């Protein structure tokens, strides 16, 4: 399968996994739109929840959202009103990213063989942007660096009147 059509298929898996998560553990409304390719220069976000996977294919699934939305998700999951961006909020975003990536990985595994998930990484700030540079002679195949100028396949979601995105980077691993 061509990488582009595979990315589209995974994007549908991401949508399904996100819907399931919101229906079971977050219990907030969810709307979504079609995925599209987004250049990294267009990404501006407060929070990034990253999970990478390796195997026949390797890549990154990342949640991009505002600080306000991260607080709302964490408050809902913990059933308590959080107003400060604490380590608990980062933990909640990490777990959300992990559950989406884990479900996508299960579907990928069924089709392409065993894959391995990383532990989630959460990056928090204000107006963060992503630039993956690839000018170093030694670049690991499993880091963001290997995607250098590749666009993200980004699926936009709206919940609780807040927009958030889930992005995908994907490559076939070297044999």
């Amino acid at each position: 399968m061509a990488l582009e059509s595979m990315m589209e298929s995974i994007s549908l898996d991401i949508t399904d996994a996100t819907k399931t998560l919101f229906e079971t553990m977050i219990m907030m409304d969810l709307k979504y739109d079609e995925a599209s390719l987004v250049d990294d220069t267009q990404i501006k976000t407060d929070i990034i929840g990253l999970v990478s996977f390796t195997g026949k294919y390797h890549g990154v699934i990342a949640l991009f959202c505002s600080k306000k939305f991260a607080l709302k998700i964490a408050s809902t999951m913990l059933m308590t009103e959080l107003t400060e961006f604490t380590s608990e909020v980062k933990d909640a975003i990490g777990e959300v990213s992990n559950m989406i990536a884990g479900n996508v990985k299960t579907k990928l595994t069924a089709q392409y063989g065993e894959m391995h998930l990383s532990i989630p990484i959460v990056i928090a700030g204000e107006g963060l942007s992503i630039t993956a540079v690839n000018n170093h002679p030694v670049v690991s195949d499993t880091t963001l660096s290997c995607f250098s100028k590749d666009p993200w396949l980004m699926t936009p979601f709206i919940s609780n009147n807040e927009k958030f995105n889930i992005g995908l980077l994907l490559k076939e691993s070297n044999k």
Partner: protein
Amino acid sequence: MPKVLIIDDSAVMRKIIQRNIQQSGLIVDEFVEAGDGREGLEKATSHNIDLILCDWNMPNMTGIDFVKALRGSGQKNNVPIVMVTTEGSEAKVEEAKNSGANGYLTKPFTPEQLKSKLGNFLLVK
């Protein structure tokens, strides 16, 4: 009275599991928490635990390594272990069962799914 050990590197997930159990009507006297398999192993052997819930992907010692280590130690063989994890492939479920896990629940889960899975090991009020 039943004592449940929850092993998960996410403190938020440990709280969610506890809350769901408390609201489900399942009888639990005390929760013990661990943030990875290594801490889980220490607490499983030093506390009088009746049921263990264990995540798979964790730092230091993974959940499956915890299951293999505990079952391999010959201790607490009668204590059931339920994996609660995002790992949902058939191969992982099989590996967990072959290693000595007694139940398997994939995240995300509803409170009803958790209650149904743990109802095999805990009494309901």
